[in-house]
Structure formats: structure tokens, C-alpha cells
């Protein structure tokens, strides 16, 4: 049981780190000196990846995966309101 839980935690960590490295490639920080260009597709991708990462931390690291329903609902609502809000304000 412990080994399964350990493996799941490690998989979550690997996916989270991989997404972070992908984010490096998306960021505008490499164009030092040159002007960065706004990009809707990249920002939408960033919002989606941020949502996925946040949910993985909550579900796997904070162990909400096995927590009571109210905690799952509250944390999901927080994630959805936050990221939908960020995207809506950006697109507006």
C-alpha cells in the first residue's frame, strides 16, 4: 500500500516538473532586449497548465483525492473560479 502511494506521489512530481520545464519554453523571458509579443494561445495554454498543476498538487500532494467531498468541491471551485477569472479578465 505504501509503495503504491509512493509511486503515485513520484509520478505526480515528475509530471509537475515536466510541465514546469515546458513553461520555460512558453515564457517571454528569453527575448531579452527584443519586445515580447502578447499571445492568446500561449496564455490559454498557461492557464490550462496552471489549472492542471494546481489540481495535481491539491489532489496528490495535499491528499484531497481521498478527502471528504466538501474539500474536493471547495478546492475545485477555488481552482475553477481563479483560472476562469484570470482568463476572462485577460481576454476582456
Amino acid at each position, binding site marked *: 500500500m505504501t509503495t503504491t502511494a509512493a509511486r503515485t506521489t513520484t509520478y505526480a512530481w515528475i509530471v509537475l516538473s515536466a510541465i514546469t520545464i515546458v513553461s520555460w519554453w512558453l515564457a517571454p523571458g528569453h527575448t531579452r532586449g527584443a519586445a515580447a509579443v502578447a499571445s492568446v494561445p500561449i496564455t490559454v495554454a498557461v492557464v490550462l497548465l496552471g489549472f492542471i498543476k494546481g489540481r495535481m498538487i491539491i489532489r496528490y*500532494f495535499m491528499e484531497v483525492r481521498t478527502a471528504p467531498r466538501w474539500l474536493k468541491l471547495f478546492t475545485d471551485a477555488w481552482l475553477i473560479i481563479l483560472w476562469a477569472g484570470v482568463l476572462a479578465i485577460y481576454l476582456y
Partner: protein
Amino acid sequence: MANAEQTAADLDAAAASSVSSAARQRTLHTPGDGHMWVMVLGDLIIFGAYFIIFMVHRAMKPQEFLASEVHLNINIGVLNTLVLLASSWFIARSVQAARADDHAQARRLTYLGGLCGVAFILIKAYEWSTKIDQGYTISTNEFFMFYYMLTGVHLFHVSLGLLILSITLRELRNPRRCRLFMVEAGATYWHMVDLLWIVIFALLYVMR
């Protein structure tokens, strides 16, 4: 005969314990205690409000924010994210070790997680000092005001997290009196610090 009876009793006991462990796996469990979750969920709401306020200001001056964002060092941002994710992995594994009654391993993992937290603070201090050297301060513009404010408040939470991890360590030092919910509560707070950083990283460093 007595031996056979004992074996049968052992088998029964083994079956009963495996049933109860399966049942425990299915039962829902709130990690830590209610007080910690009140604090964590409250913090999430407050930070959520900061993030939305940041976006509203960003939407008013998108060009200025984007032009300033370019001056942040993405390498350091990614490195710090990886450091915090590693620390969360150590802490999550530490809770699992404590659950399996391997307190020595749980202590080692908590130390490693805390060490990553210290590394995060040092890297952040280095990042701040290079920004200040380059002339980007809190009064440069609105983007940098948010940059120092959000990362500063977050840094305070990292420090508080380290203090909480030291309480976890004290708890783990005495296996017989170790309260698992205290270990879980400390971990819950630490992962929240990680969770908030993930959002800060996306909004300040990556989005365009």
C-alpha cells in the same frame, strides 16, 4: 491440535486486519486537522483575490506589464518552481513514511524538504538583489510593485512553512508520542506554499 487452532486463529486475525486496512483505504480522510484547513482555505481565498486584482491591473496596461515581464529571469523562475516541487515531493513522502511508522525516514525527508525551502529563499534573495542592481525596484512601475508584493508575501509564507516543518520534526522525534495529524497538517500547509507559487509563476513569469 492446539497448533492447528492457533493457525486458524492467526489466519482469521490476518483476514480481519486486511479487511480493516482495505476499509481504511476506502474511508475518506481529511489530512491534518480542521484548523489547518480553515487557515489554508482562507489563505487560498486571500491570495485568489490578490491574483484577480493583479489581472485587473494587468488588463489596464497589458503592454507595460508584458514589457516588464521580459526583464524577469525565467531560468530562476523555473529553477525555483522545480525546487519547491521537489520539496513538496519530500514532504509528501515524509507523511507516507510517518504513516508506515518509519519515523527516521520521515525525519530525513522532512529535513530535505526544509532544505529545499531554504534553497528557494536563497534563490529568491539572489533574484531580488539582481533586479535591484538592474534598477528594477518596487517603485519602477505597477508590474514590479506586484512582483515584489506577491513574491514578498509568498516568501513570508515559505518562512512560516519552515517554522511549521520544524514543529513537524519535533513531532517526529518521539515516535511513541508522534501525532500523525500534526505531521499531515504541516504537510498540508507546505503544499499550499507550493500551490500558491505555481500560480505566481504562471502569472508573473509565463503568461503573455
